[in-house]
């Protein structure tokens, strides 16, 4: 593999990991507050559809993103009402929302655009285009650093830059602010938050607000930046991979970035090199690379590498008692 090929693989890795990163951070907020969110997939899907449709109608990708976030937020709030207020089973609520998104996007897509569930292709400002950073062309011929700058760092869409800017912001919010302290506490021991005079329900809804927004951006990225249309089931299980990345990252924001990049790399490899020959002896099938994120997650959960330490009250509805 020559150097340029490596750069192209990494470029593909970055593009593919952005959606995982947004979704993973979305899951981080929810799970840190004690609410399991298996519904990342559904929120991404509904957002992808709404973002594509609104971007097509308005001609603005950014308005599309906002609309996608709104759709995702509505789903997050439904999840909140079911699991925080009515203390329903969080897995069931999440799975239900996934089904709802899957069906709703196809039905609405058919009804509006009559293209088998697809939206029309987005053109011009209705999609995110690549931003060429200053001097990208000038330094292209500089050895090593040149291609890294012009191919990998430059030439990404705005949402890619946003994703990597959001990571330190999330870290700061979680570990350096009052909000973060309370958020982490409510997922560990909600009764400690309750007796400190803070509303457990309020904190969890605030967390789900961030989940909704971030998941919305993830979905919108799929249909307005990574592709230029919405296709049925286009989230293709990335919500679950993001959840796996969250476990792999041990529920921490910086590690979430690492996990998303790793899983993005695996996806890039399976896209670019469907068959990998190892010394011409063994051929690694593409299915293996595709399954690797899940295998790695199981290995992590089994405690072979470090120890998974989820928020202690995740998945448990809060009932006041003393």
């Amino acid at each position, binding site marked *: 593999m020559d150097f340029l090929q490596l750069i192209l693989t990494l470029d593909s890795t970055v593009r593919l990991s952005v959606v995982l990163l947004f979704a993973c951070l979305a899951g981080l907020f929810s799970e840190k507050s004690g609410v399991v969110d298996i519904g990342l997939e559904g929120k991404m899907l509904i957002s992808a559809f709404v973002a594509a449709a609104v971007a097509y109608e308005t001609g603005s990708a950014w308005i599309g993103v906002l609309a996608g976030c709104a759709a995702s937020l509505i789903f997050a709030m439904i999840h909140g009402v079911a699991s925080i207020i009515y203390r329903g089973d969080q897995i069931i609520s999440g799975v239900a929302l996934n089904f709802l998104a899957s069906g709703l996007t196809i039905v609405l897509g058919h009804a509006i655009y009559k293209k088998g569930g697809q939206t029309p292709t987005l053109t011009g400002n209705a999609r995110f285009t690549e931003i060429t950073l200053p001097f990208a062309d000038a330094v292209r011929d500089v050895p090593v650093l040149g291609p890294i700058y012009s191919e990998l760092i430059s030439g990404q869409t705005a949402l890619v830059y946003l994703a990597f800017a959001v990571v330190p912001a999330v870290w700061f919010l979680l570990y350096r*602010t*009052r909000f973060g302290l*309370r958020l*982490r506490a409510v997922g560990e021991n909600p009764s400690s938050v309750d007796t*400190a005079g803070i509303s457990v329900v309020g904190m969890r809804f605030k967390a789900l607000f961030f989940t909704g927004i971030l998941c919305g951006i993830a979905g919108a990225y799929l249909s307005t930046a990574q592709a230029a249309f919405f296709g049925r089931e286009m989230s293709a299980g990335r919500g679950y991979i993001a959840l796996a990345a969250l476990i792999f990252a041990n529920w921490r924001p910086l590690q979430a970035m690492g996990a998303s990049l790793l899983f993005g790399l695996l996806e890039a490899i399976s896209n670019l090199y469907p068959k990998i020959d190892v010394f011409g002896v063994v051929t690694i099938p593409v299915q293996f690379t595709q399954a690797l994120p899940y295998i790695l997650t199981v290995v992590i959960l089994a405690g072979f590498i470090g120890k998974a330490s989820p928020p*202690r009250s995740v998945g448990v509805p809060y009932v006041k008692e003393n």
Partner: protein
Amino acid sequence: MAEGQNQGRPDTAAPAIELTGISKAFGPVQANKDISIRVMPGTIHGIIGENGAGKSTLMSILYGFYKADAGEIFINGNKTEIPDSQAAIAAGIGMVFQHFKLVQNFTVLENVVLGAEEGAMLRPSLAKARQLLTDLADEYELHVDPDSIVEDLSVGHQQRVEILKALYRQADILILDEPTGVLTPAEADQLFRILARLREEGKTIILITHKLREIMEITNTVSVMRRGEMTATVKTSETSPEHLAELMVGRKVLLHVDKPKANPGEVVLDLKNLRYVDEQGVERLKGIDLTLRKGEILGIAGVAGNGQSALLEVLGGYADGTGEATLKGAPLPLAGRGSDGRSRRHSGIGHVPEDRQNEGLIMEFTAWENMAFGYHHEPEYQKNPLLMDNAGIQAKAAASMERFDVRPPNPKLKAKNFSGGNQQKIVVAREIEAHPDVLLIGQPTRGVDIGAIEFIHQQIIDLRDQGVAILLVSVELDEIFSLSDRIAVMFDGHIMGERMPDETDEKEVGLLMAGIVEKAA
């Protein structure tokens, strides 16, 4: 003795807390009935009562956890509404719950600051709290490393963090709910010193407990609750444990059990060089030699955590030990095949575990199901090779619940819906009715009210008189002394010595518990 340091204040000063006519019902259950109480500033006021008497409900109302159906709250003479915990904190009330409300993987500092932060950013709040914590530590002897992770702290230190949390919020009134239930005797003594210090500084303390000794030791005034009502409020110096016990249960109780002399028979259980290493690689039992005879109660005294639990676990069949054990003359396997809980029960060793909620019962299951557990595979519980005889088990459970005075005697209620004492009666009933040769009993009356203690003690003695060999583990020295026919003291995985209860006293046993072997006097 219990006269406070602030007796200079005239009795006409406004009470720190005054509750008038508080009532609270949960469905058909009237938890608090028209309760009125005055707590004077700068005093320690005890509230004592059996489990389920309504003490915790009353305090939860004061802390804004529940809303009272009727009644008024006055803080320092001013009528105060307390709709939530935030309002209680604002009114200067701090509460130390029986089960700590700490975030286990946060530092002490983070726990103290949580909910009382100064602004949106964390750093200034933490810095300010660190300073204040140092001051409070010096003032009240509440030393805790602010950077420790809470889960690494001992239970006693975690409790200090709870007290610090309240003081950080400038609480003048501290409520402690059963604070010594989880403490070792030494930790409890330290707590009492801290409480006395807080009283000296003018804080008002409400101490909820069911331990008469604590009330007598530290309170100025004591209020007694029974079945949701406040039955009496008396000065501690003008009452006695017997009088308080009578007020609590509404009839005279015998704090000392009258028991006929034991008539020990042949050796049933013989242990030689019993050892056990736990999962962390710590040796918990370091060569235990014990014999247990038919018809006697062998009491194991010791400060919690000196190997008593390990002894019960190995004998009960859920930890693997090494050494030699014989039961009724036959070898008893300590590891591998035949050393599990089922084989133990089958071979005649009944077990009332120390932790009834996690090891003795399945809280989400009904009483009748719980009364068959551990014995559910015995032929008498089977209807045919495929099905269990549920109707039969239910009928048997109903009958045992009647015999053991479990209230309410409804086998279809879930275990979690019974009070602590009644849960314990269910476990005790199950193990006794299986007619064991040896009964292991861990902390039989922990968190159990006085009426039930008396009942359970009587059952244990009756069982002994039927010829059962009983191994009793308890951290309550009173209990060891009043029940045991022979006392063995454990310290650091060793048996420090055996004594006959009428030839020793609490002082000598206490020294043995601390690992000090006194020279023969």
